[in-house]
């Protein structure tokens, strides 16, 4: 049988995925499972979303040939400029898709989790645009290290709910958002920001992000040799890979955050170090103890600081369709500074992990490498300039 990389009718990618939800969420998840394809594939929905992506987000984002970077590495290197999206990252692609879906489902209240704050800003923006109430759960630790995005969300009218439980980062912000949904099952839609959570979220978010590779296919008339993207939960990566999953001529590379190194405990390299298990209602790979307690991850980048990974990535890892590697905080910081000085583009710390991989790979002069530049670095200036 031909290998499949997409979700099956039960919500699984191989052995990963599913909806490991408490009964309290059954009606909400069932409603989404039964309606998300019919609603999002309808002509009316597609027309509305495409128009917003064009006029409001500024899509298509450029596929920029990075001349000086290419000269440095001795191959053709292109940057997919998701950092040029309105709000500064790819997250808006999904937030707009889901808010349109929420409207069709007659929901009036929106909740979201956020790590780096990019998904929070994207959701707050979408809510402002549609006149919906917006509540963003954010770890207390992340609120401190991502102050500019906190200010933006407030400006956009969102209420930020600090999360002080557990790791005080993305993992616990996600727990609290799910608990909010349990307590407000009728009027609320939960806009998950990555390809994680119970089915249908991983597939739904992947579909909304797939516009990235849909555009790449139109922008580059030939196959790239490589597409490289950073991975926390994995939404920008799946978006960049999506339309190339069945094209084996293109090597797909996902770069995890090694933090201080995968031989230390300060790391977020889930696929390098994790084991199969259930987190946030899906079967995936996660950082955990032998007893099944989830381990608190670490990365300098708040958007990659997640102990799990999207179930589709766990499956793409298992089937070896995608190559997964990792880079450290320091390598990512160096790459961010190098891109800034070489191309005049300050990348997000998350995206800098994908850039840093260029130094770790074998590059041939005939290579055509696409880096998905998932976000811009304004939010990270404090961290980026600490040692200048």
């Amino acid at each position, binding site marked *: 049988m031909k290998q499949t990389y997409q979700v099956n009718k039960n919500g699984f990618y191989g052995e990963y995925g599913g909806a490991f939800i*408490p*009964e309290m969420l059954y009606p909400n998840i069932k409603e989404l499972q039964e309606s998300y394809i019919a609603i999002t594939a309808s002509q009316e929905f597609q027309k509305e979303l495409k128009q917003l992506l064009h006029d409001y987000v500024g899509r298509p984002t450029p596929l920029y040939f990075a001349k000086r970077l290419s000269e440095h590495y001795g191959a053709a290197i292109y940057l997919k400029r998701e950092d040029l999206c309105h709000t500064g990252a790819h997250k808006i692609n999904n937030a707009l898709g889901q808010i349109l879906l929420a409207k069709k489902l007659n929901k009036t209240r929106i909740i979201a989790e956020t790590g780096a704050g990019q998904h929070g800003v994207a959701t707050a923006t979408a809510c402002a645009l549609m006149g919906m109430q917006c509540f963003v759960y954010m770890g207390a630790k992340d609120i401190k290290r991502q102050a500019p995005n906190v200010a933006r969300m407030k400006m956009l009218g969102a209420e930020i709910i600090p999360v002080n*439980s557990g790791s005080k980062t993305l993992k616990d912000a996600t727990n609290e958002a799910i608990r909010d949904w349990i307590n407000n099952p009728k009027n609320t839609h939960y806009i998950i920001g990555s390809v994680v959570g119970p089915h249908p979220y991983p597939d739904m978010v992947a579909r909304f992000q797939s516009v990235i590779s849909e555009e790449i296919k139109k922008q580059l008339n030939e196959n790239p040799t490589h597409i490289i993207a950073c991975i926390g939960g994995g939404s920008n990566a799946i978006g960049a890979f999506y339309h190339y999953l069945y094209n084996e001529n293109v090597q797909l590379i996902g770069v995890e955050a090694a933090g201080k190194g995968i031989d230390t405990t300060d790391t977020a390299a889930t696929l390098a170090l994790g084991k199969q298990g259930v987190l946030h209602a899906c079967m995936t790979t996660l950082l955990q103890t032998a007893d099944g307690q989830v381990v608190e991850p670490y990365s300098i980048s708040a958007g990659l600081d997640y102990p799990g990974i999207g179930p589709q990535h766990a499956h793409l890892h298992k089937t070896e369709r995608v190559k997964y590697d990792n880079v450290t905080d320091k390598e990512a910081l160096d790459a961010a500074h190098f891109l800034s000085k070489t191309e005049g583009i300050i990348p997000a710390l998350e995206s800098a992990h994908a850039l840093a991989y260029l130094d770790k790979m074998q590059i041939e002069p005939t290579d055509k490498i696409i880096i998905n530049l998932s976000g811009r670095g304004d939010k990270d200036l404090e961290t980026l300039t600490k040692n200048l």
Partner: protein
Amino acid sequence: MTLQELFNNKKEALLNIYFTAGFPKLNSMPQILSALEEAGVDMVEIGMPYSDPLSDGPTIQESSAIAIKNGITTDLIFQQLEKSTSKIPKIMMGYFNAVFQYGIEKFCEKCKKAGIAGVILPDLPINIYQEKYQAIFEQYGLSIIFLVTPETSEERIRYIDKCSTSFIYAVSSSSTTGKETGMQAAKEYLNQLKKMNLNKPLMLGFNISKKEDFDFAATYTSGGIIGSAFIKHIKNSQNLPQDIKSFVQSIRPKN
């Protein structure tokens, strides 16, 4: 006593107390079990702490975090159970990942050995249970207990009734545990449940914190399950047997 015998022979509303294993101290469980049995509690729900308990409010999140910090593990829970002499019917409550890591079959085998009557895994959906794990649970004679909520459709409640082997856990409101919002809002839902004449008995849980809540539960179902309120009561206890006795007395005074 099996769960079935417990429900068949009950003379008054059943009181089920939840506590977190490894809390407040690593080795508190045997003492808690004895005290609950002595106080006349009908069954207990032993919480296996998990780092990310999605269905739980702040109280059980905290007791779980403390228990994990104290060093509790699934193996230790079984070791403590083996040492306990308590005959009170016991149910294990936990999240699926801990059981999955332990190994489903090994977990069921240990449960049987420790005299566990049933298991509640709120994040293991019925369809996945049936497809992958039901045969193993049945092989070891373990009952699995599913939840219904005010948002569960009548069709699904009937289906859950059919899939259940001991009792159904009726959640009092659409919420996480320990809200203390009172029970009155659940009236209509509980009336409907009662009218449905289900085959399996119901126990009401979530947000039951005092005698009037428990009495309310008893008018509609076979009894009530108390968790967060009990955890709060024993959190800083200097004398567990005495505090447990006084708590149970406050819920169900002995004449």
